[in-house]
């Protein structure tokens, strides 16, 4: 428990800005703006309505908002996500629901 920077439980709603370092687990509801330096996990049942800046984001629940991650975004099969994603690595599992833009660096051959 000591390592867990932040857990937002099922019965908790937060509206506002959330910033800092450390991992964040969302089982409840988070609205506003999130800027974290580490890993955010939105669990199944959790809802995030926010623009998110982070290093890594794992989505199992619902998310609406734009995502700017400097490492990786994973959208699992139970997730529903709306918004634009900018990240070097984006993973979408079969069964995931997603609508929006994805922006990664795409190295194309010269002759395309």
């Amino acid at each position, binding site marked *: 428990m000591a390592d867990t920077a932040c857990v937002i439980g099922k019965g908790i709603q937060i509206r506002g*800005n959330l910033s800092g370092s450390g991992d964040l687990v969302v089982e409840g509801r988070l609205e506003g703006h999130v800027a974290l330096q580490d890993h955010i996990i939105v669990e199944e049942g959790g809802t995030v309505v926010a623009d998110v800046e982070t290093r890594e984001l794992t989505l199992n629940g619902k998310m609406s908002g734009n995502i700017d991650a400097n490492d990786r975004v994973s959208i699992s099969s139970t997730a529903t996500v709306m918004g634009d994603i900018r990240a070097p690595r984006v993973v979408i599992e079969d069964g995931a629901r997603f609508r929006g833009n994805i922006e990664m660096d795409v190295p194309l051959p010269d002759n395309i």
Partner: protein
Amino acid sequence: MANTVIGSSIVIDGEITGDEDLVVQGTVKGKIQLKESLYVEASGVLEADVETQNAEVSGQVTGNVTASDKVELKSNCRMVGDIKAPRILIADGASFKGNVDMDV
């Protein structure tokens, strides 16, 4: 142990509502409304008005606290603001500035 923890490196500026326990080790500015217990640990900083059932303060609180059951100020805490609750405990070593209203 409570489900929800705001870690020491986290800053929240806004509103927290809920029906479960909340542990604050980081910083919360704004407003907190809970149906259960609020724990402000030694590293926690609250600049917020609080409505809750129970509050246990070991860190710093600036703002008014209203509890339907109990407010407990532990030693080494710092609290500036008014407290309204049927039961209020202030430990030896706690620093507190504000009004106390036990609704007598």
